[in-house]
C-alpha cells in the first residue's frame, strides 16, 4: 500500500464540450494539508468534487487511500467511506436536528447502534465547540455554527481525508474566524486535508503546499512561503496581486 492519501495522474474532465480539468497530476501524502486556490471557474471545486466521486472524470486515474475511483458502485462507496466533504453552502439536512444530522450516516451507513452514534456525534460536536446546540434545528443556528455542524457531521464518519469546498465563502465576515479556527484545530490532529479557499492567511499558516489552478490546469505547486514570496508563473503573480492588497 502506498503512503499517499490521494494520487491523481493524467486526469481530464469535460462538461459537454467544455474542458474543465486538463491533465491534472497531484499527489497528496498522508497527513498533508493542501490548499487549492485560483480564480473562479478555474476548476478547483470540480477537482475536489472528483476526489469523492460527486463529479466523474473521463480520463486518467484517481486513487484515494489505495482505492481506485472507478465506475463500480462498490469502489465509489469505499472511497466515500474514507473521505469527508464540507460544502460552501453547508447543506445540512433542515428537517433533522443537529444531532440527527450527525448520527444519520453512522447509523445507516456504518450500522452503528443509535446510542453509540450519538456518543460519537457528541464527541465531534464538542470538538467543533457546539455541543449545546445538539437538539436545535440547522435553521436556528448562525452560518458559522451551521458550517461547524457540517464539519462535525463529516467527521462522525471518521474519514481519513477531509475535503473543504470554499467553506467560508458563504459566511458573514465575523463568522469566518470561528470556522477557520475549527479547521486549524482539525489540522493539528494530523488529518489529511484538501481545502479550496481564498483565505490566504489560512494557507500561509496551515498548508504544507499551495496549488494554484487557472483555466482547468494546475499552474503552480509550491510551499506557502515560496508561493507567496516568489511565485514563478505570471498568472500566479497576477492572481496574487488581485487577492493580496
Amino acid at each position, binding site marked *: 500500500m502506498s503512503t499517499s492519501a490521494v494520487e491523481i495522474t493524467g486526469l481530464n474532465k469535460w462538461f459537454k464540450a467544455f474542458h474543465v480539468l486538463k491533465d491534472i497530476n497531484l499527489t497528496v501524502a498522508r497527513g498533508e494539508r493542501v490548499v487549492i486556490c485560483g480564480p473562479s471557474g478555474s476548476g478547483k471545486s470540480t477537482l475536489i468534487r472528483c476526489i*469523492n*466521486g*460527486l463529479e466523474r472524470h473521463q480520463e486518467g486515474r484517481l486513487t484515494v487511500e489505495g482505492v481506485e475511483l472507478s465506475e463500480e458502485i462498490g469502489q465509489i*462507496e469505499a472511497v*466515500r*467511506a474514507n*473521505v*469527508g*466533504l464540507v*460544502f460552501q*453552502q453547508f*447543506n*445540512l*439536512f*433542515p*428537517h433533522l436536528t443537529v444531532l440527527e444530522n450527525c448520527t*444519520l*450516516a453512522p*447509523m*445507516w*451507513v*456504518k*450500522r*452503528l*447502534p*443509535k*446510542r*453509540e*452514534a450519538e456518543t460519537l456525534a457528541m464527541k465531534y460536536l464538542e470538538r467543533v465547540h457546539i455541543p449545546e446546540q445538539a437538539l436545535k*434545528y*440547522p*435553521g*436556528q443556528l448562525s452560518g458559522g455554527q451551521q458550517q461547524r455542524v457540517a464539519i462535525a*457531521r*463529516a467527521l462522525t*464518519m471518521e474519514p481519513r481525508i477531509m475535503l473543504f469546498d470554499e467553506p467560508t465563502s458563504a459566511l458573514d465576515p465575523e463568522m469566518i474566524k470561528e470556522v477557520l479556527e475549527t479547521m486549524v484545530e482539525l489540522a493539528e490532529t494530523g488529518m489529511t486535508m484538501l481545502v479550496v479557499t481564498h483565505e490566504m492567511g489560512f494557507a500561509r499558516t496551515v498548508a504544507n503546499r499551495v496549488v494554484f489552478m487557472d483555466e482547468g490546469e494546475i499552474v503552480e505547486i509550491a510551499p506557502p512561503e515560496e508561493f507567496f514570496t516568489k511565485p514563478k508563473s505570471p498568472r500566479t503573480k497576477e492572481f496574487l496581486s488581485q487577492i493580496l492588497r
Partner: protein
Amino acid sequence: MATPLRIAWWRRRRTRDLLFQAALIAGVLLLFGIMANNAIQTVERQHIATGFGFLDHTAGFDVVQTLVRYDETSTYGRVLLVGILNTLLVAAIGIVLATLLGFLVGIGQLSSNWLVARLARSFVEIVRNLPLLLQIFFWYFAVLRALPGPRESWGVADAVFLNNRGLYLPAPVAESGFGFVMLAFAAGAIASIFMFLRAKAVRERTGRVSPVAPGTTALLVVPALLASAAAGFPMSFSVPALSGFNFQGGIVVLPEMMALVVALATYTASYIAEIVRAGIEGVARGQTEAAQALGLNRGQMLRLVIVPQAMRQIIPPLTSQYLNLTKNSSLAVAIAYPDLVSVFAGTTLSQTGQAIEIIAITMAVYLTLSLLTSAFMNWYNARVALTER
C-alpha cells in the same frame, strides 16, 4: 403645530370603508332576496310541497349497484344513502390508485433510465391534456363495452371473467367457524406489528438490521391458515359460472364502475405525478450531494433525506387533487354509474321535483366530504411539516 388639513367627508378613509361595506351587504341581501322570491313563486306555481318529507316516500326504482340492502320498495332516504356509499366507494378506490400511480409516475419522470422517464412523461402529457369526460367515455364505450359478450368472456383459471357486462370475481362465503379464523388472523396481525416495532428497537439499540418482511408475512398468514385447517376450512368461494346468457355467482364489478375508477385514477394520477416531481425537484440539489458525500445509498437518500423534505411541498396540492377526484366522480352520471348525483340529484329529483331540497342536500354531502378530507390532510400535513426553526 401643524393645522390638520380640511378634508371633504366623502374623502375620509373611514367613511369610504363604511360606505363600501354597506353597499356590499345591501347587494348580497338583494341577490338572496331575489333568489328566494323566485324559488317561492316557482314552488307555489307548480304546487310542490316543500320540506324533507319526501325522503320517507317509496322510491319505486331499481339501482344497479348497492352496497346496502335496497329494493324498489325502499325510500328516497335510502336512495340518498346508496348514492353516498357508491360515491365514497369510487372516491376511496380512486384516491388509493391515483396516489400509487401518481407517485410511481412522478418518480419515474426523474428516472435516469431514458425509456422510463419518457414513458412517464408521455403518460402525464397525454392523460393530463384530455378532458376527463372524454376519458370516461373512452374507458366505458371504447374499451369495456367493446369487450366480447359473456359467452366469449376472457377468463383466468375459470374463476375470474371479464366481458362487456363487467368483471366477475370469486366471492368468499363464510361458513360456521369462520370467526375463529378471523380471530387467529387478528392475533397474527398484532404479533407482526410487535415484531416490526421490536426490529426497529433492535436496530436503534444494536445497529443490526434484520429483515422483517418474511417474519411479519409469516405471522399474517400462518396462524390464520392453521386455524382454518383446524376448523376444517370454514370458507368457500362462490365462483362465477356461465349459466344461460350470463354469469351466476361470485361478485361483479360493473363496467360503469371500472370505467369511472380507471378514468378518475389515471387522470388524477397525472396531476399527482407532476406534484411529486415538482416536490422532489424542489428539494435543493445540495441535499442530494450531502447525502451522497456521507455515503448514503440511493434508497436511503430518497427515504431519509429527499422525501421527508419533498412531502411538505407535496401534501397541500395533493389534498386538492383528492378533493378534485371526489368531486369529479359526479361525472358518473354520464355513463349511468349510480353515484350520488346520478341516483339522487338525478332520478330522485326528476321523480319528486324537490329541486331546492335535493340540490341543497347533495351540496351539503359533497361539502362535508371535502371538508373532512381537508381536515384529515391538514392534520397529516402538520405531522410531517418541517420543524425547521
